[in-house]
């Protein structure tokens, strides 16, 4: 079955002329790539455009993908770069107002009871908001680490940064998320947050 073939074999078959097999790679990675684009761009329409552009770029450059790194890492790198290009092109809103208040997801301040507010769903919204307000250099590694579940080595390949830099960005990003949550929602007692 073609659908069970590893990425490398599919790539080789495409390069030898079976271009329709690219559909398998798109089906395999459409969700993780779209999710990544959505987390970076914060707009479904733009995320879909960016994901399509990333797949198209990957297809045209498929011949150069057979390096040491995996196809997945290579595709993530293309998608990340496409998203950064999209952000630069639209001259992204300043970080301090990255998510306008009326568009922001419901947060703890609107909840009457802090304990109730610490429910998982609201906590996720809160952390998403904190993440949205971070600088790109912290948001990207944190997104790849916590949402995509990639380790430091993969992130350093995708972002083309030394692993030590990725670790530092993760560390500072975590601290900034925590600071933002504590500053904006002092009612939330972090010690009472259930292990998630």
């Amino acid at each position, binding site marked *: 079955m073609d659908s069970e073939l590893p990425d490398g074999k599919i790539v080789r078959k*495409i390069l030898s002329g079976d271009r329709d097999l690219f559909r398998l790679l798109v089906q395999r990675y459409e*969700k993780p790539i*779209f999710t990544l684009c959505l987390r970076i761009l914060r707009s479904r329409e733009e995320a879909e455009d960016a994901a399509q552009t990333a797949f198209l770029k990957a297809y045209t450059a498929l011949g150069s993908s057979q390096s040491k790194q995996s196809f997945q890492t290579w595709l993530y790198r293309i998608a990340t770069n496409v998203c950064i290009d999209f952000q630069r092109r639209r001259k992204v809103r300043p970080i301090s107002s990255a998510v306008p208040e009326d568009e922001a997801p419901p947060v703890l301040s609107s909840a009457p009871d802090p304990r109730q507010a610490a429910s998982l769903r609201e906590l996720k919204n809160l952390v998403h908001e904190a993440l949205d307000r971070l600088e790109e250099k912290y948001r990207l590694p944190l997104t790849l680490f916590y949402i995509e579940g990639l380790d430091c080595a993969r992130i350093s390949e995708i972002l083309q940064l030394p692993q030590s830099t990725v670790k530092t960005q993760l560390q500072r990003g975590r*601290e900034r998320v*925590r600071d933002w949550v504590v500053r904006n929602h002092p009612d939330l007692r972090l010690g009472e947050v259930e292990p998630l």
Partner: protein
Amino acid sequence: MNAKDLSCRDARELLQKPLLKAEEKALLRQCASSCHEYALEIEGALLLGALSGQPLESPSVLFVHEVMAKVEKVPAPVSLTTEQKWAWMGLAASLAIFTYFWTFVQSRFSLLPSPGFTLDLSMGPVREFFSELLGWLEVLSLAMQGLGELLMTHGPGNLVSALLLLALLALGLFASKLRKVRAPSRLRCLY
């Protein structure tokens, strides 16, 4: 190692893992109270842990179809094998060498008399041409021999061989340019 150090070591290890199990998160929470060095970072990690393991977002149902429609409009990707890359480099190097000798020969043949001139063979342009040509051929054959030995020893893919070929290419192009510039002044001297 005391309890605080152990706790910090655990925290450091757990902070490197993107996806934590429930018991690992519980351990990380314990570390936050005993290892003050990482307390802030641990609290941030626990908050961000809320985002882990979320279902992935789905694009529109037409996503794959749209991508494939665009893919069909672009040329099929090509992949050059190592042998093909070497063949292209060899071709480029040969072209450069050929360009050099072509300009070299051209500059010499332009010395041949145009109608109305009488060639004075005592000036020896033909002899000079052949002696210089033989000299260059000797240099070239030595260079190719050295290059061939290098390629035989190290095989294709060796960076030094690639750099040598590129250097040869650049040298050929540069020399042919020099030759073009120098030719008119030689003409003036001879006639």
